[in-house]
């Protein structure tokens, strides 16, 4: 039978139509072989990205690049300028993700602790100085000045929550007495601002509250409880109850990403927000955090032929691409920003299968560039790479607090 088939091909190949047909069949077969096999060239063992103890090869290489940025002022200036042209928030978040990463790295790799502490102090001190010299608007997007904050005096929970977490992370790695009153001042201010909001939420921008920042504030409170013996558990429980009632998208059960001070939704469930929110919530309410992660995975997690990514919006809430989502590739619904945050969710909740797929996609489409033991992703930027580093090393800080919880 095969012999006759090949004979027929032989006859047909002399004619144009036959040749075209053979070519198209070969192309189709080759595509069917290659496309499902492509991920094998980019898939690594999960340990290449993240390890239960110590540092993975990728974490070491990403960290080497960031540590160089903070020891080479010219390089740092160039990187920060590159980001500030687009978004001043990224300059700030690049700092916070790196400080949180270094705290976890210090617990994973005590031999390098002093080097990490030096860089952490440098980042924290410079960030506080910039905030003091230029005011909170230095790290906010320009529209922050377009309106006035409902709760006065104006404060941005975006800055307060992440600065508080930086201070607490540093102190968890090694106590620094000068930072203790600074942490207390931030946490007290956050609680006061949130208490003044009708649904226990505080603004990051004028009449614009973000679940990301509010849950970061809860995490900072739990960190202060761990460090200084304060007790914010009642407030945290009230916040979670309020969020379940006021901030949950009825169709997906996922927390919405932004809302007005009175709780009116501005943006629905969003990939660039919920993965990190679930991670922060681990310190506030573990069961609720796991529930949010599972829902986010169901609604936003995507996997195909060995590659994984995250969408920005669930099917039930369509929104456009924005500064947080980055460009969204249609049809496949790939959001760069959401996929970056999905690494943190997958790392935090031990979802190695999803993490392996995400890492394969990153190596395929992130355009890694290695030089002298340092790794950066060309398609990313400093804040993106710092978030990836955090995903690769997070764990020890959260585990300490979770274990110490009453």
């Amino acid at each position, binding site marked *: 039978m*095969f*012999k006759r088939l*090949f*004979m027929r*091909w*032989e006859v047909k*190949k002399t004619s144009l139509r036959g*040749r*075209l047909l*053979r*070519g*198209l069949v*070969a*192309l189709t*077969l*080759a*595509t069917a*072989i*290659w*496309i499902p096999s*492509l991920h094998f060239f980019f898939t690594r063992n999960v340990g290449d990205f993240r390890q239960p103890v110590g540092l993975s090869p990728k974490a070491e290489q990403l960290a080497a690049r960031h540590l160089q940025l903070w020891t080479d002022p010219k390089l740092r200036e*160039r990187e920060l*300028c*590159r*980001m500030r*042209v*687009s*978004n001043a928030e*990224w300059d700030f978040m690049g700092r916070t993700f790196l400080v949180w990463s270094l705290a976890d790295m210090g617990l994973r790799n005590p031999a390098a602790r002093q080097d990490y502490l030096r860089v952490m102090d440098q980042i924290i001190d410079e960030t506080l100085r910039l905030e003091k010299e230029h005011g909170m608007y230095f790290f906010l997007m320009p529209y922050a000045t377009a309106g006035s904050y409902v709760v006065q005096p104006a404060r941005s929970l975006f800055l307060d929550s992440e600065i508080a977490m930086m201070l607490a992370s540093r102190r968890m790695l090694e106590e620094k007495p000068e930072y203790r009153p600074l942490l207390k001042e931030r946490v007290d201010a956050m609680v006061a601002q949130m208490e003044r909001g009708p649904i226990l939420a505080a603004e990051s921008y004028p009449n614009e509250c973000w679940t990301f920042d509010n849950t970061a504030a809860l995490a900072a409170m739990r960190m202060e409880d761990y460090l200084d013996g304060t007790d914010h558990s009642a407030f945290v429980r009230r916040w979670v109850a309020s969020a379940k009632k006021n901030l949950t998208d009825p169709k997906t059960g996922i927390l919405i990403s932004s809302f007005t001070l009175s709780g009116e939704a501005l943006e629905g469930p969003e990939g660039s927000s919920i993965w990190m929110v679930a991670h922060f919530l681990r310190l506030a309410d573990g069961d609720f955090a796991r529930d949010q992660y599972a829902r986010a995975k169901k609604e936003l997690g995507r996997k195909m032929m060995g590659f994984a990514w995250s969408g920005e919006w669930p099917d039930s809430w369509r929104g456009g691409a924005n*500064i947080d989502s*980055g*460009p969204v590739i249609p049809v496949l619904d790939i959001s*760069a920003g959401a996929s970056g945050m999905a690494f943190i969710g997958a790392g935090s909740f031990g979802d190695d299968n999803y993490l392996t797929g995400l890492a394969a996609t990153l190596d*395929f489409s992130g*355009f890694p*560039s290695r030089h002298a033991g340092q790794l950066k992703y*060309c*398609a*990313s*930027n400093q804040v*993106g790479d710092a978030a990836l580093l955090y995903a690769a090393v997070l764990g020890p800080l959260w585990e300490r607090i979770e274990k110490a919880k009453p």
Partner: protein
Amino acid sequence: MNDTIQPKPRKRRTGFLSAKYFLSRSLELAALFLIAHLAGLRQYTAFLSGTTADVGTTIERSGVYGTIYIVLYLGCVVAAPILLLSAGLLTLWDKAARRG
């Protein structure tokens, strides 16, 4: 002296969708990507994160160079291997048919 005019050898053309055609296109795609890579266009893919390759470059220029790089990268990583496999499959069929 030989004054007979030798006919110019005709340039051999690879038949459309033949094994040689696939092989040539595959090598061309790989070569184009290599050129773009060596020219340093990889840095411009930073536009995907909303940032420029460096402070002196506009986001528009980053977008153009970055898109060129991505198209050539996909050509090299996705399309070229498919063309190479197609060439291999056609060659195998030809051989099998000749034996048959």
